[in-house]
């Protein structure tokens, strides 16, 4: 199982002409944990969504190659795409408040995902849902399965999202800012859970985030994106050796608990980074 992306470009038509948001991104991911880090507007989410053909309808995508386990995504129609999307490659979104259905119980949503990909009776799907909730370390799976999203905390909601995504037993997992709507302690718990599940099931993981230290914790390597391009690729343990000005800027503008400074470094953006 591997994902290959070659010269991916995503553009949007605007009244002032086409704007290219992703400008020639290439990478290959196997059964490993890879992070894409960048600021808002860097094209990191569009890159990840291209793999699942989940771009906004206004977006135009081109690539020399875009394949999932040998399947050419560029040539795949919507029907065939559904056998990959969700089933073989799961997606976890940022904010459980917005991405869970507010009028369905957590259990029903997980069961729906289970039945859509695996079939079976409603009863079996509900049992599977409770089992999945247990796997994402929810202590009272029965109670949570019957709860509506507004009755759950942010961390709980994100666990439900993960359980839903695990239902079809995917081989690959895309997590798009899975913890940025959560506070620091819950953030760590959810990341640890995703990390553990990916390791146990031998899944590939693509983690999209703006948080470089967090990503480097959980990934084997990190792609740094700036203005639609991958400007640097680093092994997670080698952040200190980052060469690109943008990566170094990202690291140096973080406040530190142990090394307080009166003023934080501010990123000085250079025109050459856009080239």
């Amino acid at each position, binding site marked *: 199982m591997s994902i290959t992306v070659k010269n991916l470009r995503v553009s949007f038509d605007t009244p002032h002409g086409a704007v290219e948001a992703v400008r020639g991104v290439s990478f290959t991911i196997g059964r490993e944990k890879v992070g894409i880090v960048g600021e*808002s507007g860097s094209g990191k989410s569009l890159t990840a969504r291209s793999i699942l053909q989940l771009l906004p309808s206004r977006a135009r995508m081109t690539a020399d190659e875009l394949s999932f386990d040998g399947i050419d995504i560029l040539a795949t129609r919507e029907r065939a795409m559904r056998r990959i999307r969700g089933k073989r490659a799961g997606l976890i979104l940022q904010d459980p408040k917005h991405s869970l259905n507010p009028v369905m119980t957590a259990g029903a949503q997980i069961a729906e995902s289970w039945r859509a990909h695996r079939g079976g009776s409603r009863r079996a799907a509900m049992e599977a849902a409770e089992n999945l909730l247990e796997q994402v370390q929810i202590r009272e799976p029965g109670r949570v399965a019957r709860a509506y999203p507004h009755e759950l905390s942010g961390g709980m909601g994100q666990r439900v999202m993960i359980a839903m995504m695990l239902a079809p037993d995917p081989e690959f997992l895309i997590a798009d800012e899975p913890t940025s709507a959560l506070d620091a302690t819950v953030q760590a718990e959810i990341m640890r859970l995703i*990390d553990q599940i990916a390791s146990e099931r031998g899944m590939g993981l693509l983690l999209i985030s703006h948080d*470089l230290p967090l990503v480097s914790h959980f*990934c084997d390597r990190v792609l740094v994106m700036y203005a639609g391009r991958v400007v640097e690729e680093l092994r997670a*343990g*080698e952040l*200190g050796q980052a060469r690109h000005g943008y990566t170094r800027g990202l690291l140096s503008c973080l406040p530190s*608990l142990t090394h307080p400074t009166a003023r934080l470094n501010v990123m000085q953006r250079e025109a050459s980074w856009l080239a």
Partner: protein
Amino acid sequence: MAGVMVDVQDLRVHFGSVEAVRGVSFEVARGSAFGLVGESGSGKSSVLRALAGLNSDWSGTMRVDGADLTPRRERAFFRRLQMVFQDPYASLHPRQTIDRILSEPLIVHGFDEIDRRIARALDEVSLPAGMRFRYPHQLSGGQRQRVAIARALISEPEVLLLDEPTSALDVSVQAEVLNLLADLREARGLTYLMVGHNLAVVTHLCQSLAVMVNGEIVETVSSDDLRAGRVQSPHTAALRDLSLDLAEAHGEPAGAEPTFGAGPGEIARRAL
């Protein structure tokens, strides 16, 4: 100048039958910055909102500059105490220009020279004058948060309540906004009360902070003591450890040797 600017004693906030804040007491000295940290649901934002007058269902004593606060506030109170919210996408009126957004507090509080004050406010938060007649959706997140800060400062308040002012921003923008807040506090002698969950951010701006768990303050500690690990409560220690472990990952940013030698997976297990 010295003295207590914000004094909160035994504050309790109810939401129906749930007591979200259960007897919280702290003092903020004039001209200093004080942080409230804790997990979501710990009641830290409820303290801020009760203080700001956004929630009138509270009991206890709250004083600003020695004057007791009542559930209903005078207009003058809102001039002296302003709030900056977490999400600059939600806290600015989408159908109003920046000019209109900034002029409203001036009109409400009967200020003169509105035109000059708006120009100066934009200048103070380093926004170009050309932004003045734009709408919020035409601005980036960092620019919007600058507008929100300008709006809070335009009525010349003495106290600023900051509710996670940078957690919706990119780290590079966060640095700019934190520097701006630090500069403004110094220039105007402002008193800050800041809510946050990122210890590195809160200790950067605040000299001392209180850790909240389940609606109660479990520890009040100076930022220096927290950095040095001189903490009493296990909750504070746990927050500190988490923050240190995350900070460890970026090592020495100036390109020096990274501070760890283990593989990434092992760090994750060790840290979390």
